[in-house]
């Protein structure tokens, strides 16, 4: 039973929150919705995508011109304040952060729900220019702030890793029409590992945390055991709707790995070891979409409230009965597909290797297979830390083993600067239909100062993935494949010439130095002749 002061306090709190909301969002306020998509994959795995969207209707990003003056106060109801403060502090228009673990298998899993599936961390932002702070100053502040917010080492994405590849990272929302231009900043950190310490701050940004609604399935023990898992945060602005914040978590689980029988059956219990027991009260919509297998017999329990276009939908907010656990079962044991004749899920197949046994030079080889019956133009982006330098003149392309000219166009290449700027290599490739284009380029590996080496020097350096974007050619789709979506290659590891930092070598080096020193001195003393030189009077003058 609530006492009178508590009730008063609650009324007061509601009033303050309400007035704050009225200030921050000029018109209809905030809206939170959550969605879970589950897709059984053809290799027996299950892909799940959690998305949590918050709209700040009618709001606009902060203009960099106003950075010197006091910002209007921020009062939000469901919008994540910690993130909102960062966005306004550094006047960020659009922001995408993703932190992933594992290799996304495009061939078997198709496109992911969220496109950013690069291994490790990736951050890119569009920011307006102008005002008293430069874009680079704000980018640095943004990295540090996000680093603190998500407990990740994003701060190390410094200018040695920052690039600006405009063709690949086009804004997903709208850009306000400010006097200054908008600039892109992009950085990736392939060695970053995502784990529980990143999930906890992520959950704190959600209005219902992980207590109710779909987010209650986010059980770290299961999420971080999945074959592939990653979280991302996206901020965009739609001129018509306002600011959108989308937090998402994706995972690919393998029911076959966890079960003793050869069955791909899954349920919330088996995938997450949790069930949904409460609704999230502030969510305006809360849905679960399950992609239904097209040509197989299966059973889905409980049955979805609506099914349309091969997708079964559960609406948690409308249904009288809350479907706490959803389970999909197949009648027979799962057989892995033996042939590779199955329909391709993405238009490209990629293979990228860094070869060469030498520690000074190497060879970057990329094979791109166009699986479509039409010619395809794709953007190819390589961003490399300065440790690896391209010999751009050695770039050559072959089609199915034969040399071919005119495949590479619109090359933009920023060579690296030691200790300051990474390489950016961006080009448009023309891929003939049903063919494999092999690109190759010689690279040289930097010789580091001994203080430049990482603590785990003998491991090598992680290199960011290459990115391919099939360009839209009038239409958005060819042969049922959607275009304009980024495809990442796996990351690479490069071995640089590394001194052996272990103790025996230190001893050898030290002893050799001492020996050389003693030998030099003794030899000098033995061979030099000491003579007293008498200078006569003439010389004195």
């Amino acid at each position: 039973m609530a006492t009178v002061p508590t009730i008063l306090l609650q009324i007061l709190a509601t009033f303050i929150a309400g007035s704050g909301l009225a200030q921050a969002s000029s018109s209809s306020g905030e809206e939170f919705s959550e969605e879970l998509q589950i897709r059984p994959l053809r290799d027996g795995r299950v892909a799940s995508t959690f998305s949590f969207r918050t709209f700040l209707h009618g709001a606009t990003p902060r203009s960099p011109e106003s950075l010197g003056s006091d910002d209007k106060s921020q009062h939000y109801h469901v919008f994540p304040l910690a993130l909102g403060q960062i966005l306004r502090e550094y006047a960020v228009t659009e922001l995408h952060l993703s932190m992933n673990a594992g290799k996304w298998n495009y061939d078997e899993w198709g496109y992911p729900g969220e496109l950013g599936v690069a291994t490790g961390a990736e951050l890119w932002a569009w920011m307006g220019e102008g005002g008293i702070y430069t874009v680079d100053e704000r980018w640095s502040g943004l990295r540090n702030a996000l680093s603190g917010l998500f407990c990740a080492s994003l701060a190390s994405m410094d200018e040695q890793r920052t690039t600006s590849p405009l063709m690949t990272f086009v804004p997903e929302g709208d850009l306000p029409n400010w006097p200054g231009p908008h600039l892109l900043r992009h950085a990736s950190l392939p060695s970053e590992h995502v784990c529980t310490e990143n999930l906890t701050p992520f959950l704190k940004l959600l209005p219902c945390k992980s207590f109710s609604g779909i987010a209650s399935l986010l059980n770290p023990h299961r999420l971080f055991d999945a074959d592939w898992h990653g979280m991302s945060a996206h901020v965009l602005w739609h001129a018509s709707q306002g600011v959108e914040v989308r937090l998402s978590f994706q995972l690919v689980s393998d029911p076959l790995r966890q079960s003793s029988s050869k069955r791909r059956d899954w349920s919330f219990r088996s995938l997450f070891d949790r069930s949904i027991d409460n609704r999230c009260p502030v969510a305006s919509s809360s849905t679960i979409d399950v992609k239904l297998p097209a040509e197989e017999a299966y059973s889905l329990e409980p049955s979805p409230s609506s099914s349309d276009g091969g997708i079964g939908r559960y609406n948690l907010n409308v249904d009288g009965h809350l479907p706490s656990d959803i389970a999909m079962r197949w009648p027979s044991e799962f057989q892995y597909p033996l042939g590779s004749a199955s329909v391709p899920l993405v238009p490209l197949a990629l293979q990228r290797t860094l070869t060469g046994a030498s520690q000074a030079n190497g060879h970057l080889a990329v094979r791109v297979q166009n699986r479509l019956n039409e010619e395809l133009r794709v953007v190819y982006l390589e961003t490399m830390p300065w440790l690896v330098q391209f010999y751009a003149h050695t770039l050559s392309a072959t089609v199915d083993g034969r040399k071919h000219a005119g495949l590479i166009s619109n090359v933009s290449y920023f060579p690296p600067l030691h200790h300051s700027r990474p390489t950016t290599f961006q080009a448009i490739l023309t891929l003939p239909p049903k063919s494999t284009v092999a690109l190759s380029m010689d690279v040289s590996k930097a010789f580091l100062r001994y203080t430049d080496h990482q603590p785990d020097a003998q491991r090598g350096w992680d290199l960011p993935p290459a990115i391919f974007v099939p360009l839209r050619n009038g239409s958005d789709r060819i042969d049922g494949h959607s275009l304009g979506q980024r495809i990442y290659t796996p990351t690479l590891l490069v071995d640089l010439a590394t001194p052996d930092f272990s103790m025996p070598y230190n001893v050898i080096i030290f002893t050799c130095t001492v020996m050389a020193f003693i030998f030099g001195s003794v030899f000098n003393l033995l061979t030099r002749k000491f003579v007293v030189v008498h200078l006569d009077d003439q010389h004195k003058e």
Partner: protein
Amino acid sequence: MSLEYAEDRLWFAICRIEYPLSTFFVAGYVWMLVIPFPNLGRFTYIDENALQPGQVTTYFDWGNVHTADLYLAELESLRDSNATSAERASYITTQFKRLGIPAASQAYEFDASVGSLKGVNAYAAFPSPRSSGTEAIVISASWLSRSGNDALNLRGIATILALADFLKKYSLWAKDLVFVVSDGYLDGMQAWLNAYHSTLQSNLKAEELTLTSGVIWTALHIDYPGHSFSHLGIFHEGVNGRLSNQDLVNSFERIARSSGVPTVLYDHIDWRDNAASRAELEIIPPWVPSFLRDNHDVQTYAFQAKNVLRHVGYQARGQPSGVHGLFHQFRIDSFTIFAVPATGPHGFHAIGRIVESTLRTANNLLERLHASFFFYILTGPYRFLKIGLFLPSAILISVAMMFSGLKIWTDAGWVRDDSPTDSKTTTPQEQWTTRKRPVLSVLLVMVSTHIIGALVFWLITRSAVINSQSLLALIFLGVSTLPMVFVTLFPSPSAAVPTSSVLKAFSLCLASTVISTTAVLNFSLAALLAILLGVPMTSARRIDSVPIKVAVSLVYTSLAFGWLVWPQAELRSAVWNWDILGVWTAPFISIVYAPLMLQSSIVCLS
């Protein structure tokens, strides 16, 4: 007076460098004999703390053994039906695909001077859950076993398939696992590794790999030819005498021993294990008296000597002791686990658990193995010698050769002049005057011998020559006449030093440099060179009697190029190794070793 005389004598002795030099020679050779000594060296230990060998619970159980048995039955039916390489590869890739692991095959063909070879490899790359796939561990088995006689490694392949089925159920792998079933013995893996690292080999036509993974850090090769096994043997020598990091071998040894399977070096079963393995002591010659034969220390010495000799045999020839040896050139630590054939008591269960545990240990690594554990001689599975305990033996001989060379060079520069130079001096004194030393002509002789060595090497790598005994004999006859040709072409100038002295000085210095530089790269080769070149080259001198000098010179020539005619099998295998695997022994022997010996032959003849 007498005291002064004695002091003079002592001083004279010290000045004469021959005595210390011969001491160096003796010390070096004795040191080599001491290497297998039971109390030299120490027990192996694990240097890298991250490895933590044998600290995990293993889960490979009898169900997995049953899976392996099923695979084995199918492989045996493939063998019985004389399946082709392509059929075998297709069977194996299908099995991997059934397990949900992406698999592919690779056809290859070598066109070597000793004959061509072709086959099809099967491999599968398991992308480990949650890992970025930038590092990988290879688990491999070849179709043929190392035990020779066309023995097949069917149980090794069955182990790999059963392991693939088992290992993919765990999400704890931090590195991708790549399973390779290579065709043939060494050739298949050579083709696969070259394709994986995009290394060009002119005589190899191999398909590109459609599946790739990250940088390979560790490789385990399983060789299980028999029905069961009693011991697990370790083979660790690689191409060109490279060794894998000792930490890896030690970890495996420790894991196997703690799992109850005794380990041995190579297939040398400890003579104490059972009555049958006393045959391992046959290395002790029959004339050794029985009280010595039965002495424990003598037996240990003999057994360890057998291990060391086997090691030197592989390393000095640059020959890999198993398929694992091909990995070393790509900076991958690897060794072969050889299941020594026996009637029992161990089988799939033991090898499965041990490989699982070894993989877990390799999986623990955050960095490559890098501590200075690459230079060692294993005298037993768990005893080894550090570099400091064996390197000086070859270096002492090399030092002795260098100083003998320098002494000859210095001596050659001076001549005693007995004619009275000054009539005023009443007491005749020893007069030493300098004289010219023919450097240019000697260098010409040396360079041309090495060029001839290169020519011989070029000839023996032609398939027409290597396959014809008569042509090889003809080449040998040709090079045998060379010393005569050189002696007539470069006669000693009358006023100067005889060419032979300067030639001997230079070739000794060169040989010494070669030995000392090789000592760090490949100790066994350096030791062999020290034995072959040391005393013969130092004792080569000008002989006056014509028949004797021709005979001695012929002995040196046969030491230099005798391998052209005998043993033929050795020559063919060296050329094969050079053609297919890129082993440097054939070119090294023909371009470096043989010309040095030939120079000694010229020294004798001139």
